[in-house]
């Protein structure tokens, strides 16, 4: 556990170095044999050889996408667990993934949508729509917006969208074939443009939530105390809810629904840096990025030459580690 702020600061530096190293590794290792020297040369002195093309056009976008998507998922999960005050929350609980998947499947079935770019806008629209629905439904009624209602409305909406999605897929086998890989979540074969169009939203949401992370500390003491301290809890919840959804929405828009990262990273991070959200959020970003990069690299080796979707690999890598930590450290 990192107790002092200077230790936590050093932790950030070490974490960033590790992520840079993993991004480098993501350029170098894979089915096509390349070296670290190739990776360096392909940017400083590109020769147009096969290896250089693969590194620049295939692996480079992939490593960037994995890093950013992982960071978004980690932060989004940390925020969701905090505002719903339920340690089992994750981006998928507030309907984000289910809404996104539903919109994409509707697009594929009824509008014959095919390009990844349109998948992206559809899923972003679906994620935002689902979240707004959850937020409106849970703030209606006399009790107002309680964490419990937010969680329950979220899981009801998730259930609803997920079942519609499944229904459409069962009725339409061609669509199933087309979107199955997207639904498993992957960072491979995504053009850099996808990330570039999502990047501004990611950057704004990350910065905004990092800057106001202190408010989450107040909120997590409890609604009554937060109100007593002069916090307008409903706006804070909306602000962070929207932030978390933009992050999760961008992640699902770029890479498809990737579960599990958002749920385990915050737990691992809290056992490392404690309960201060000013540290939890940046550390969750790093943890998510590292896990997704690692999973993406690992996914290239398990079934070589076939690749495993990164969503599958995050579970295969993350689960044993998470169970170990849950048994040893989480103090539960």
């Amino acid at each position, binding site marked *: 556990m990192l107790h002092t702020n200077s230790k936590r600061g050093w932790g950030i530096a070490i974490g960033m170095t590790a992520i840079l190293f993993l991004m480098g590794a993501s350029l170098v290792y894979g089915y096509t044999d390349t070296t670290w020297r190739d990776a360096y040369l392909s940017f400083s002195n590109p020769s147009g050889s096969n290896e250089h093309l693969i590194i620049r056009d295939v692996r480079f976008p992939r490593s960037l996408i994995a890093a950013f998507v992982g960071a978004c998922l980690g932060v989004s999960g940390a925020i969701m667990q905090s505002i719903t005050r*339920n*340690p*089992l*929350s994750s981006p998928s*609980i507030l309907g984000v993934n289910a809404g996104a998947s539903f919109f994409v499947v509707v697009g594929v079935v009824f509008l014959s949508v095919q390009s990844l770019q349109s998948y992206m806008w559809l899923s972003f629209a679906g994620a935002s729509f689902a979240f707004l629905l959850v937020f409106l*439904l*849970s703030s*209606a*009624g*006399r*009790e107002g917006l309680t964490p*419990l*209602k937010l*969680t*329950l*409305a979220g*899981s*009801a*909406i998730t*259930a*609803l969208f*997920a*079942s*519609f999605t*499944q*229904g459409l*897929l*069962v*009725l339409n*086998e061609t669509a*199933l*074939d087309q979107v*199955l*890989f997207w639904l*498993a979540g992957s960072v491979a074969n995504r053009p850099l443009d996808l990330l570039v169009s999502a990047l501004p939203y990611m950057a704004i949401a990350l910065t905004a939530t990092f800057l106001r992370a202190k408010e989450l500390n107040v909120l997590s003491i409890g609604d009554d105390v937060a109100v007593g301290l002069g916090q307008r809890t409903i706006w804070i919840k909306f602000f962070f809810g929207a932030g978390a959804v933009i992050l999760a929405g961008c992640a699902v828009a770029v890479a498809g629904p990737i*579960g*599990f990262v958002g*749920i*385990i990273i915050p*737990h691992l991070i809290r056992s490392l840096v404690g309960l201060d959200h000013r540290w939890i959020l940046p550390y969750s970003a790093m943890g998510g990025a590292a896990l997704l990069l690692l999973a993406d690299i690992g996914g290239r080796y398990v*079934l070589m030459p*076939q690749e*495993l*979707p990164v*969503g*599958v*690999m995050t*579970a*295969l890598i*993350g*689960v044993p580690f*998470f*169970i170990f930590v*849950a*048994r040893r450290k*989480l103090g*539960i």
Partner: protein
Amino acid sequence: MKIFNRIDFTRHPVIATVLVFVAVGTVMLISAGSGEFPLSPSKVLAALFGYGEEFDRIILIDFRLPRIMMALFVGMALAVSGAILQGITKNPLASPDLIGVTAGASFAVVLFLTVFSDENNALIVSIQWLPLFAFLGATLTALIVFALSWKNGIAPFRLLLIGIAVAAFMQAGTTIWILMGPIYQASQATIWTTGSIYGANWSQVSVLMPWALLLIIISLLLRRQMNILELGDDIATGVGSMVQRNRMILLLISTGLTGVAVAFAGGIGFVGLLAPHIARRIVGPKFQSMVLFSAGVGALLVLIADWIARVAFAPIEVPAGVWTAAVGAPYFIFLLMTQRKKGGA
């Protein structure tokens, strides 16, 4: 709906339970009467008691009734399983699907479909073995989850986290198998994981029914232990309850119920999550009334879902699992929005 707001069913749980089971009976009658050959309720009743035309009896008893009975018991089993699990873990998100029981069954089924298929995608063993595989998958996964979360007893929260992790692991395994196999199997597997009671027969019902009834009755007999457990470990230990032993027994009942239900009906989701919430909002948190009411709500959800699945898009079957949430979620949201009292969860 006005009546639900006027009468406080938390004080009259018996009336509420009777009402919900009357509704279950009505839906069963309607469902038994509808289909390609519609039958009036009186004809249905006549055929049930051995009167009526031979043709009606065959349709009803050989085709429709096994499905309806299956839906009834699957719904009750899933709902009670969820009610126990939410009570033990004190977490409103807990449900049998969440801690990996369903994921384990799905994995076993996908394994079954791939391992026992020849190159033409035809099964080389009888499909009758599928439920057994699913049940084994569900039970093994539950045991793995219990073993991994055991550390001087089972702490509910650790159980949930480890359950989620194991579920994710099983899902990853399922996805790997599906991606590696042909698209035909992917589609078969998707239908199974969505959950459907298409093709239920009496021999399946005769396995499911005694199991489900037995486990539900045992859980009702354990109502005192359950109510004490819900007060928290410290109080429960303080009043002399054997916390770990009781919790383990109740967990085994809960996973056993889910196991038999998914074995025959596949991954019908959301019943175990939604039914207990609906019940708690209507009859309050006391275990015995809550569990019975949940059982009724669960049965109602699956019965209506299966009825829609059978009738709405005939002759195409849309798996019942699609409709449970479509039926249950809107009503649940309505309850959530109109609730006047605090608490309940």
